[in-house]
């Protein structure tokens, strides 16, 4: 049970960490302009 909670915690922390990468304003504009064109 403990390892399951640990894995979930790790997954949530990793996902939130990646989400934080999306919060840089300059990068957001680049994303908006380009990434969607080739989703």
């Amino acid at each position, binding site marked *: 049970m403990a390892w399951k909670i640990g894995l979930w915690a790790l997954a949530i922390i990793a996902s939130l960490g*990646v989400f934080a990468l999306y919060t840089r304003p300059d990068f957001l504009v680049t994303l908006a302009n380009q*990434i*969607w*064109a*080739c989703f």
Partner: protein
Amino acid sequence: MTTDTKKLSMLQVLICGATIVTLSMGIRHGFGLWLQPITQAQGWTRETFAFALAVQNLSWGVFGIFAGMAADRFGASRVIVVGALLYALGLVGMALSPTGLLFTLTAGVLIGAAQAGTTYAVIYGVIGRNISAEKRSWAMGVAAAAGSFGQFLMVPVEGFLISGLGWKEALLVLSGAVLLIAPLALGLREGGFSGGQPAKREQTIAQALREAFKYPSFQLLMAGYFVCGFQVVFIGVHMPSYLKDKGLSPQVASYALALIGLFNVFGTYIAGTLGQKIAKRKILATIYLSRAIVIAVFLAAPLSPLSVYIFASLMGLLWLSTIPPTNAVVAQIFGIQHLSMLGGFIFFSHQIGSFLGVWLGGYLYDRTGSYDIVWYIAIALGVFAALVNLPVRETPIVRGGLGKLPQGA
């Protein structure tokens, strides 16, 4: 494959399979970031770049069928190694192609073929053959969640690589990184395919195909997956323009992308886990109906950044969550001997839907000046997909009138 061979451990299959899918799906997902630097450096139009990626999507769909056949016959690990080499070659070609034609052949055809050999259909074949039916849907959910996480992770990573190293160097770094897939494939080497001999099977490819395409449930699953491709890619490609038309800032679209990516990771995992407890046809029908409802409410409600974020979060939960139950139900009905090939055919249907979603979105926008009609089509298709998935028969197919069940079903 022969039935008397030792199976791989579940942990080994999940670690190797999930890491391969993370790399393969992730690297490809950020290709849009190269649009501006490549077209500026080479003096090409956006159309040249977009055409190569459209070819890549179709190539992925077409080669997916053959990669699946090869994986079922000669083992997934060999196909994955070839896929990794093609991927690296394609990325180098993407960096160094001097003409639009060569760019289309490398970034389009080669990388499309590479994805066919390194993504879900091939990995799911290994999962099907090595993980018991009781845990198969869950394991497929884990692999799909890993692919979703790869997509979510690699977009910012590739953005940093481009800004830090330059676009060409970033592609060369990725071509080295994608070669990590080859040693990971060794962890998916199955005993039944050893010695380079084709696996022994009860059905030929032709028999398996005839059986599947005559079976109504397979046709219904293909129809559902077509809708999945249509909705996901239409929203992914055209939503930013839609939001821009409505006066929202580019940041809103970017946060929407991040939210879709974040919730997609958990949505795919949850769908795979639920597949162990609830009938997969009901899960699929619920996903498609929910998409239709979420889109309809999004269109009907007053548009604001908050409504976009709620829409993106809910769509993220439903985004790739169709993958585990669709593939698990194919394994359940037809068994695991031709799972990768049949998964490849179903995925081909998904890619046709994707192509139409992008194309029809652009075409109808040019004709009518709005996305309204395509949104309505997306809603109607969601209801259609929910209805066609309900009658899917999940019980293993009975062959030859002898009550013989497919292996591993």
